[in-house]
């Protein structure tokens, strides 16, 4: 690094930024000074890049789906490439805003704390555009990102110290601050100026009809399990295709970056409550909950965030189950808000330390009873 960026140099205030770009290009030449003389090759950059790769199928599918839903809504014939580019052009501004706002804050706070810039935001910034409605006004997104990064992460000390998943905080901020832009019929499909929905089309997601019965949406899109599994339904950009998300889950589980226990247990939790609800008279098959709305995306990419999830093995089972169960409870028993996954995960994040505390206390008292 050039000496003007070192302490005392004129451009020291750019130190963290320069360091971030330098280490981005190069594995640095730093060596282990104490402790183990050799190190595993894995580092945060590698973990983040793998997590990013795992979300790419969902992102690409989501971009195509934005265009596809647009074609359906205005009554045009869907065409693969034009749909994809329509979606791409809609999503890219979201990425630009999410990264510029988030990374600026991240770089500045790294400099203030005199630390290296943490890679964690690369993943957060990649996920944020995938979980917001595609037509969200960019200034709202900017405000939400700034709030989530500042108050969700930096005030706690940065990545690794945060309590809640920052990407979900962005969405929660949008949801509670600008509810009219976050739900309803016109939100989930991106239209150009002057375009209108064709008769009988609706921009609402199938989830919005949970309380009215599924039949009402069947006019526009199939609401068969297969449609929702493949993801050809309206919704947040990246959340619709359970298939693409499963691909990502496979990468995460195989590389060990995310915990399969959390994913499996959240599915179990959702199924359990779904079955109970079905027995109690709900007409939605329990497995529909797995492919509707943000459940799959949340369970795979957001609940598994190792910083905010439960830390212990047993705790992960409880935490995942809790999230799955709460998600379906919110969906079925709260007429005001159709999507429960965001709140379920944020609640799960909040309870994760308590879950771990209980698991550890139990383990310690079991150990104390063991006969020496």
């Amino acid at each position: 690094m050039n000496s003007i960026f070192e302490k005392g140099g004129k451009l020291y205030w750019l130190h963290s930024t320069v360091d971030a770009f330098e280490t981005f290009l190069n594995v640095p030449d730093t060596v282990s000074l104490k402790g183990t003389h050799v190190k595993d090759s894995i580092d945060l950059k590698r973990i983040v890049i793998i997590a990013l790769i795992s979300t790419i199928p969902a992102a690409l599918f989501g971009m195509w789906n934005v265009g596809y839903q647009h074609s359906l809504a205005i009554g045009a014939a869907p065409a693969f490439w034009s749909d994809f580019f329509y979606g791409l052009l809609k999503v890219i501004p979201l990425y630009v805003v999410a990264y510029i706002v988030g990374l600026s804050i991240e770089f500045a706070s790294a400099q203030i704390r005199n630390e290296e810039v943490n890679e964690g935001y690369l993943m957060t910034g990649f996920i944020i555009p995938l979980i917001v409605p595609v037509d969200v006004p960019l200034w709202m997104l900017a405000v939400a990102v700034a709030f989530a990064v500042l108050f969700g992460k930096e005030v706690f000390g940065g990545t690794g110290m945060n309590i809640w998943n920052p990407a979900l905080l962005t969405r929660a901020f949008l949801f509670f601050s600008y509810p009219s832009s976050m739900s309803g019929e016109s939100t989930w499909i991106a239209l150009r100026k002057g375009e209108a929905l064709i008769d009988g089309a609706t921009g609402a997601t199938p989830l919005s009809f949970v309380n009215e019965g599924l039949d009402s949406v069947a006019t526009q899109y199939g609401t068969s399990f297969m449609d929702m599994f493949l993801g050809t339904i309206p919704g947040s950009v990246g959340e619709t295709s359970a298939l693409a998300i499963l691909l990502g889950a496979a990468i995460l589980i195989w590389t060990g970056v995310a915990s399969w226990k959390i994913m499996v247990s959240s599915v179990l939790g959702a199924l359990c409550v779904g079955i109970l609800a079905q027995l109690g008279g709900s007409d939605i098959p329990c497995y529909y909950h797995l492919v509707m709305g943000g459940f799959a995306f949340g369970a795979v990419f957001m609940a598994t965030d190792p910083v905010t999830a439960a830390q212990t093995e047993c705790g992960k089972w409880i935490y995942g189950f809790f999230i799955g169960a709460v998600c379906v409870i919110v969906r079925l028993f709260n007429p005001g808000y159709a999507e429960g996954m965001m709140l379920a995960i944020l609640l799960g994040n909040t309870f994760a330390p308590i879950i771990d505390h209980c698991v550890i206390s139990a383990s310690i008292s079991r150990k104390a009873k063991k006969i020496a």
Partner: protein
Amino acid sequence: MKFVFNFIIMSNNIVLKRGLDIPINGVAAQETVKTVKPSVVAMKPTDFKGLVPRLLVREGDKVLAGSPVMADKNCLDILFTSPVSGTVAEVVRGDKRKLLEVRIKADEAQEYVDFGVQNVASMSAEDVKALLLKSGLWTSLVQRPYGILANPQAQPKAIFISAFNTAPLAADYEYTLGSEVEAIQAGVNALAKLAQVHVSVNSASSAFAKLQNATLHTFTGKHPAGNVGVQIANISYIRKEETVWTVALPLVAAIGKLFTTGKVDLCRKVAVTGPEAVNPAYVNALPGVAMKDLESFYAGAENIRIVSGDVLSGKTIGAEGYLGFFDTQVSILKEGNTHELFGWARPLRLNQFSSTRSYFSWLCPKKKYNMDTNLHGGPRAFLMSDSFYADVLPMDIFPLYLTKACLAGDIEKMEKFGIYEVLPEDLALCEFVDPSKNYIQDIIAKGIDLMLKEMA
């Protein structure tokens, strides 16, 4: 729940499922290529945790092998005796006159202090203790918790001996000490006078599985199964206000020789290992032997790091340094102070090892790697969950919680999460696999220092 299935206890056969063998190049061939005739040997007070040394000699004094050189100020009975006969050449001090090294120039012919041949069977515990203290071999006893010098007044719950090594490239005790079973048996007999002795072996066919007068345990598993701390945790973990002692196997042999020959003979086979070692093999050497005397193993190499001990918890000593008292291994590595363009993003990087599947090293499980000292990343806050670290630590503790408690200096939590059971070396693998590149062993060591200070 978490730990119930991690080990299966069948009589004294303990299978540890968690751990990691690091595939690093440079294992020592099983031949002893030379006997190092030392020119200068250094005694390093820093090898002993908790030692406040009082120097008993001056520069120019003559000493024999077994003559006292230092004592512990806190317990003047604990003597540190010279491993060679010669002349005290230099006393090296650091900041605030801290005693770093006592260098002794060795004589051509070795003379030993005669402590007399003993009949262990007729000795009392006090006699054994007195002889060990007088001969300086008491210092081979390590007291847990905290890994400090054993307190002669303490009555330990038991004495634990690990009869196998699992650390990367570590000396193979079957080779180095397989022929000294008699001496080890004599050492065990002496130690058994002090407390019950537990010996852990890695197979029933081990040369040390025949040892009498001790409880035998068989451990199967990857590193750190050979760490005595891990063995204790799985045999009978250390509770608050309990103490145990541990002795390294080569030093048990030295204790045995003291009782059977009356001499302090610390000569041991030392494995010279590592990716940068030329023809890695064993040498006969004394503790404190100079690295200069091992120059043939690294002659001409530049930009290398010489470590006394293994690559996980050894100390960097450099070409001018001296072998540690407890070490039976020297590791020679390349310094990884080079850049690698787009390193983290290059998908393959087949020459990199990772215990996770984030690299492709899982495709070639038998491959060995020329590892260097590069950090492979930058320091970050802890990101992975506790279980990521627990996967390489077969103990019933929560390593990340313990580490964080040490960072916070929260004694109550440190106690709760198992500070009594661990030494930094036990968490070395957690440090190795840590993607956040924290110096976990150093954090634990500082936690232990805090405990020593607060509990004193």
